[in-house]
């Protein structure tokens, strides 16, 4: 039977939805286990068991977070060997992709990023060239390493949770030898809104919001969505770079993407054109964003957006 290992890195007190998706995929492939890093809370362990994993591997060293990527890849390689995994699933974050990259070299394993679905035979589905193509790809190696985008599968739990075995994996002695050290960490305040890449609704603003994201935040809150931005808006300092959507920001594929005051440059489209439904609000009828909008409004966002927010609140009572 196939063996799939899911890497879960510092989930804190609760398992993220993206991790539960990975566990769901792992279970669909065969026997599943978790390679864990960080503090393992009881709730998280219970959730891991509920999703069908039978074992949690934990590193012998506690200092993996003090370094960039490299020692985590070394630990994960040891966990793959301990479990005998033939598929490794990671989240599609920049760290996730880089851990996957190095794991691929260590294990001589094929790495596929930006995966949105995995078939029972290991075939991975992804889109490339900014959504212009959907492709299927497969690792030609004994072990396959896949990084999976959020919102790719519906989360489901196992019919019954089993007993979770905890196994310590020896981190190789030289794992930190030529790794970059993280010497300071500055946390930025959380917005309380859903994570941009996982949100079902994204309301994004560009240069047209002219420094005031207030109306977009209110619309996002009325829809239970996240706020995003174009690079023009993040470069202007109106909103943090974390919120940038596009080639050099986040790639999102929500159910609904509302673009307001964004022209729709190729680099912006690269991050959002696989969204299910796109709504665009722009003053300029010639803006390229209208070429990809399912519903376009030629108008002033400062009039349209607050009116829509009011109307949604009214209908939701």
């Amino acid at each position, binding site marked *: 039977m196939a063996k799939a290992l899911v890497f879960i890195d510092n989930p804190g007190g609760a398992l993220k939805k993206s991790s539960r998706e990975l566990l769901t995929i792992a279970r669909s492939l065969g026997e599943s286990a978790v390679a864990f890093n960080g503090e393992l809370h009881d709730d998280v362990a219970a959730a891991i068991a509920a999703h069908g994993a039978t074992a949690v591997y934990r590193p012998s060293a506690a200092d993996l977070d003090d370094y960039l990527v490299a020692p985590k890849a070394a630990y994960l390689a040891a966990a793959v060997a301990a479990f005998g995994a033939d598929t490794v699933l990671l989240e599609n974050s920049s760290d996730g992709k880089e851990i996957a990259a190095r794991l691929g070299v260590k294990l001589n394993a094929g790495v596929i990023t930006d995966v949105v679905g995995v078939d029972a035979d290991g075939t991975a589905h992804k889109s490339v060239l900014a959504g212009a193509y959907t492709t299927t790809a497969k690792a030609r190696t004994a072990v396959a390493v896949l990084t999976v985008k959020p919102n790719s599968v519906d989360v489901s739990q196992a019919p019954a949770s089993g007993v979770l075995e905890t196994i310590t994996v020896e981190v190789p002695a030289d794992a930190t030898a030529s790794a970059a050290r993280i010497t300071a960490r*500055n946390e930025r305040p959380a917005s309380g809104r859903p994570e941009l890449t996982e949100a079902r609704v994204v309301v994004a603003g560009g240069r047209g919001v002219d420094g005031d994201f207030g109306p977009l935040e209110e619309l996002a809150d009325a829809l239970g969505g996240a706020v995003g931005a174009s690079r023009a808006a993040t470069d202007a300092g109106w909103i943090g770079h974390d919120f940038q959507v596009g080639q050099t920001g986040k790639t999102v594929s929500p159910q609904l993407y509302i673009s307001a005051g964004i022209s729709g440059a190729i680099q912006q489209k690269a991050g959002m054109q696989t969204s299910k439904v796109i709504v665009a609000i722009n003053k300029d009828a010639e803006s390229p964003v209208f*070429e990809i909008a399912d519903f376009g409004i030629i108008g002033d966002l400062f009039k349209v957006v607050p009116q829509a927010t009011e109307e949604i609140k009214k209908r939701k009572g």
Partner: protein
Amino acid sequence: MKIVVLVKHVPDAQFDRHLTGQGNTVDRDESILSELDEYALEAALQLSEARGGAKAGNEVIALSMGPAGAVNSVKKSLQIGASSGVHLSDDALAGSDAAATSLALAAAIRSLGPVDLVLTGMASTDGETSLVPAQLAERLGVPQVTFASALELNGTTLTARRDGDGHSDTVEASLPALVSVTDQINEPRYPNFKGILAAKKKKITTLALSDIGIDAGQVGAAGSLTAVETADARPPRTAGTIITDDGDAGIKLVDFLAAQKLL
């Protein structure tokens, strides 16, 4: 110091991009220097200039792996200010995935003798995988400092800022190292007339696989660890309903969302 900057020759995203042939590889007509690699080149030039530039013995070597046309990205890098160029080109490289690409690039870098710093872009604008920098660091056995949005070098100690989700980290490593940079790090310069003239006298070395000790079977489609099996062009998005606001567009928008069951 000796810096190698990786510059990839990629299809221009302003045109439609296509996958072709049996291996579903990217069609490389209409290609240019990947705009995300311009930030790496700029970072290299700034580090070199702060140490007295070429006159003081600093070297910035632009390295590109790709078919014949990729030499144009090396030339452009020389015009912008790199001191010399290397073009790794071999028919057997066609169709290489990240693993095969990083294997060949690592061997090419090693063939250049001791290097203090390898600089790359954050992602190639065609592959968009960001796998190559991390794999190069792993293969070269040097510290990986990826997604740097600010970079300083004091003696042999590199300090970088790395912006993650909800946090910004300070990362430190000593040379030799591999650094990938984001588009937040600097404002890349354009080639000027003087640079274009100067580039004509700069040297470009062409390397084949035999020069870097790699066998044809280790790279290209044969040496790749992944294979693209099918590729379907997604029907291009077509414009839907476009309305002009007559004072009630916000309400019409909500009607649309309700009809799409998105409320």
